[in-house]
């Protein structure tokens, strides 16, 4: 069994089952492709990646425009955006789970839903503790909201109770009241309690007192201008009142109401009794705090958290990964939170984005990991590399690399060269990415690849347009040589629409310029503008624009001009031509002269003759006086 790494983070296993029997058949090899990051391929999660990419880029671009409170508000908004994206994804996954018939798929979707909801739970807590940094008093309010939003499904139970004919006789009635009290939803609890009061006149007295207590419970609301000390005093006063009623035995006759009163007093045992309703230790923690230390400070959270966890689990079960993550959050150990999340989750998405957000809140010290980059950058690089292994999401990865100052550029350069370029459109997009980031090597190599493909497919115009984009003179020379070769073989130019319309791009390479000018020569000849054609031809040779290999052809092209009735080449020009011819023949070595075939020698002889004749005529013409 052996394996190999492929660039897309895929592990390829080749398993051979050797047959140990007599016949030496080669065992049938199975190749199994194991993908590292399955989440990237999920349809619903793709929406998560795309939407969060938009939020991420927006956050990076917002920079340090604002400061202080408004910056904090901005960061909180960003955090809420992330969370709403997670929620939307969760909703959709949930819909999928309900609607699908395949049990395996359903299982997968449900697992995914629970993972997403755990992620949102953790993120929300981190938002409260690290981004919002709620002070004492407000902290508890946020935590209460958090618990209400995430833990246990109260609403359906309550709806059932209320819709029944006799709500107070419903089996879940007192559960509903209890849970409202446990979550600090006093108004809702009182509303339910009134149903009991109306149904059961004997307990009306007790209900009234309990209702009164609930109404009077001091709550610090966001807009309230009470100071903490005021609040504490009021709370202490209220607490004593509850204590008195309990001790007087007011609720002795009704167990339910007595336990509610105990809960209001923050009695741990009473609260613990409702374990089943609360379903989680963090709910227990928050309830405890509401009724015993409503003005808890953030730094005190850890003690309560630890004890709540211990009390709740009661030694029966051990904490799950989610519990340890939340505990780390309560202890304000940010690095621990990130580390545990990285281990627990299968995808880098969560930790990458959360760390980036926390980094913007200036909470992470530049905790240098031993391979040089800091934690935020490391996570972003890992996440983006995962994106690049996906056939489609690579475009998102580019922006992530952009915002990794140390290694982002290098990673991007390596990854972007490995993107398969199936169509020209994709190549154009990749090129644009490279150009915007001054990645000139990659631009050149991509253009060369595309140009070579085009040349192989005989699309010389496309090849030229790619070389122009890369300003690749060497390739332009190659293409021009192709054209010239075609011309020599066929006697005419192909793709005239291209050569005739080269425009300024002609200057990209000498060969290309020659091609353009040579074509112009043909055009001039075709239009019978002989003297201009002649001048151009001569210029091509004397200015060394033409390659030496082509001089013979050019001189042969000059023949018809020399043989015209009218003298076209002046004496000067003829001398030049003769010089060119001599240069050409003299340049050949002795060997070549021996091998030269008859056609060549004939051509040279004819040329010499034509040049001589033309020279004679030109001298005579120039020597003659005009007129008379």
């Amino acid at each position, binding site marked *: 069994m052996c394996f190999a790494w492929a660039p897309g983070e895929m592990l390829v296993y080749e398993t051979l089952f050797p047959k140990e029997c007599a016949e030496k058949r080669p065992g049938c090899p199975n190749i199994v492709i194991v993908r590292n990051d399955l989440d990237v391929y999920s*349809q*619903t999660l*793709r*929406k998560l990646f*795309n*939407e969060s*990419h*938009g939020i991420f*880029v*927006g956050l990076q671009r917002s920079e340090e425009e604002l400061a202080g409170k408004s910056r904090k508000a901005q960061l909180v908004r960003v955090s809420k955006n992330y969370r709403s994206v997670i929620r939307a994804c969760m909703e959709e996954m949930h819909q999928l789970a309900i609607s699908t018939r395949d049990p395996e798929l359903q299982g997968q979707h449900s697992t995914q839903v629970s993972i997403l909801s755990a992620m949102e739970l953790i993120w929300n807590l981190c938002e409260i503790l690290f981004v919002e940094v709620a002070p004492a008093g407000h902290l508890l309010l946020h935590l209460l909201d958090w618990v209400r939003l995430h833990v246990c499904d109260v609403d359906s139970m309550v709806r059932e109770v209320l819709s029944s004919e006799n709500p107070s006789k419903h089996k879940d009635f007192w559960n509903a009241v209890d849970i409202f009290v446990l979550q600090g939803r006093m108004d809702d609890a009182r509303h339910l309690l009134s149903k009991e009061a109306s149904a059961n006149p004997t307990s009306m007295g007790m209900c009234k007192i309990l209702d009164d207590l609930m109404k009077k419970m001091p709550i610090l609301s966001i807009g309230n201008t009470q100071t903490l000390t005021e609040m504490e005093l009021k709370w202490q006063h209220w607490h004593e009142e509850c204590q008195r009623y309990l001790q007087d035995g007011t609720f002795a006759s009704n167990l339910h109401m007595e336990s509610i009163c105990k809960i209001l007093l923050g009695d741990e045992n009473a609260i613990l009794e409702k374990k089943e309703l609360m379903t989680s230790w963090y709910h227990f923690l928050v309830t405890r705090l509401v009724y015993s230390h409503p003005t808890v400070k953030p730094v005190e959270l850890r003690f309560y958290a630890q004890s709540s966890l211990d009390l709740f689990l009661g030694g029966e079960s051990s904490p799950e990964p989610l519990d340890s993550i939340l505990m780390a959050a309560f202890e304000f150990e940010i690095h621990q939170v990130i580390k545990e999340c990285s281990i627990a989750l299968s995808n880098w998405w969560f930790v990458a984005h959360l760390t980036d957000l926390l980094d913007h809140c200036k909470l992470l010290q530049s905790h240098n990991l031993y391979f040089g980059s800091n934690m935020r950058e490391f996570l972003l690089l890992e996440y983006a590399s995962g994106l690049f292994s996906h*056939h*489609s999401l690579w*475009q*998102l990865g580019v*922006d992530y690399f952009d915002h990794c100052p140390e290694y982002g550029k290098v990673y991007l350069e390596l990854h972007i060269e490995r993107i398969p370029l*199936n*169509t*020209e*459109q*994709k190549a*154009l*997009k990749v090129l*644009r990415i490279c150009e*915007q980031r001054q990645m000139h090597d990659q631009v050149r190599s991509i253009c060369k690849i595309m140009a070579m493909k085009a040349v192989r*497919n*005989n*699309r*010389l*115009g*496309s090849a*030229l*347009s790619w070389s*122009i984009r890369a300003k690749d003179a060497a390739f332009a020379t190659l293409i021009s040589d192709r054209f010239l070769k075609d011309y020599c073989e066929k006697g005419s130019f*192909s*793709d005239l*629409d*291209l050569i005739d*319309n*080269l*425009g*300024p*791009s002609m200057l990209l390479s000498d060969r290309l310029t020659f091609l353009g000018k040579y074509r112009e020569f043909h055009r001039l000849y075709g239009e019978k503008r002989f003297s201009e054609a002649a001048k151009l031809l001569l210029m091509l040779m004397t200015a060394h624009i033409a390659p030496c290999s082509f001089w013979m052809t050019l001189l042969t092209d000059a023949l018809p001009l020399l043989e015209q009735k009218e003298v076209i080449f002046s004496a000067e020009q003829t001398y030049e031509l003769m010089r060119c011819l001599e240069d050409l023949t003299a340049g050949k070595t002795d060997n070549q002269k021996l091998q030269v075939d008859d056609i060549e020698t004939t051509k040279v002889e004819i040329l010499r003759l034509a040049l001589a004749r033309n020279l004679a005529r030109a001298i005579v013409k120039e020597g003659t006086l005009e007129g008379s």
Partner: protein
Amino acid sequence: MEDFSAKFVSQKISKTRWRPVPAAALQPPELFATGSWDNEENKISVWSVGDFGSLGPNGEYQGEPQLLCDIRHHGDVMDMQFFDQERIVAASSTGSVTVFRHHQNNQTLSVNQRWERAHYHVDPDIPFYGGASCTGVICNNPEIVTVGEDGRINLFRADHREAVRTIENADSSTLHAVTFLRTTEILTVNSIGQLKIWDFRQQRNEPSQIFSLTGDRIPLHCVDRHPNQQHIVATGGQDGMLSIWDVRQGSMPVSLLNAHEAEMWEVHFHPSNPDHLFTCSEDGSLWHWDTSTDVSEKPSFFHQGGRSTTLLSHTANQSVISAWLSNNPTKDRMEITNLVPNQTLSVNSLDVLGPCLVCGTDAEAIYVNRHLFA
């Protein structure tokens, strides 16, 4: 512009097109089709807007586009057009052109017809040798014209198995887009910056006219013709420049407008309000160019004081001349607005019909705006 929200669809959208409304109908379009690209499995999908969703504050229907049906498409969807109310023609990166039929009764899509090797490189006899991308398709019932990376132009007719006419090696470079100029003439743009007119009535395989940009041969990516004045043509280039051409005269553009910072993928004149032009680009923006000057009707004494509106004073004769052809359109109060709220990745495609605009992006999102001129 308030209701310009994104719907994320888990596929990068390469083309979006509204289904055409019957000429007599007055209501806005309700259905659009999208094509995806760069997926292992690409799809053509049909979406509906307006039927579902809750009532908005003004009583009109709001709501996200709902997926009605989709069908697998081999290769990237390079271009797409509605052939008629029920059929969609799609051009693929494998070189094939497919006609899909949308069945309204049970909301499904099926393949109606396919021309498998419409575009290919060099040797068609070697199977699967070098399929060339088919980059552009345009329909004018019953004809379909396609162009591709192989520089070939095909004229198909629906329900005919073979191409009616093929112009081999029409261009030595890639043809990026095609559109009809008149019923027998088409316009093509290529990757060396040339705009060519081809006349199908002529038998020779040469363009009847070639236009090119001055200066560098920047590739042109898209082309569109003014709906009423057929000599006005707009093209978009790789450097994001919008060029306006008058095909009756000259071989160079009438005006060049520096627009986007990256390739301009699509340009569209609004079919019923041609004073409005829309362009979308790789840089993630979608621009609405508005040259309508409806203030010209008011008598001049209303303009005293206040801000100076450098309006082109339209006399009765001059109003026939389109604002696009005037030498300096920006002088005449052209309003340009970017319609995409937060730009990140490329806007690949857009379509406008009536008051509705739809566009698709590489961020796997579709944006629909049903109140363009509100």
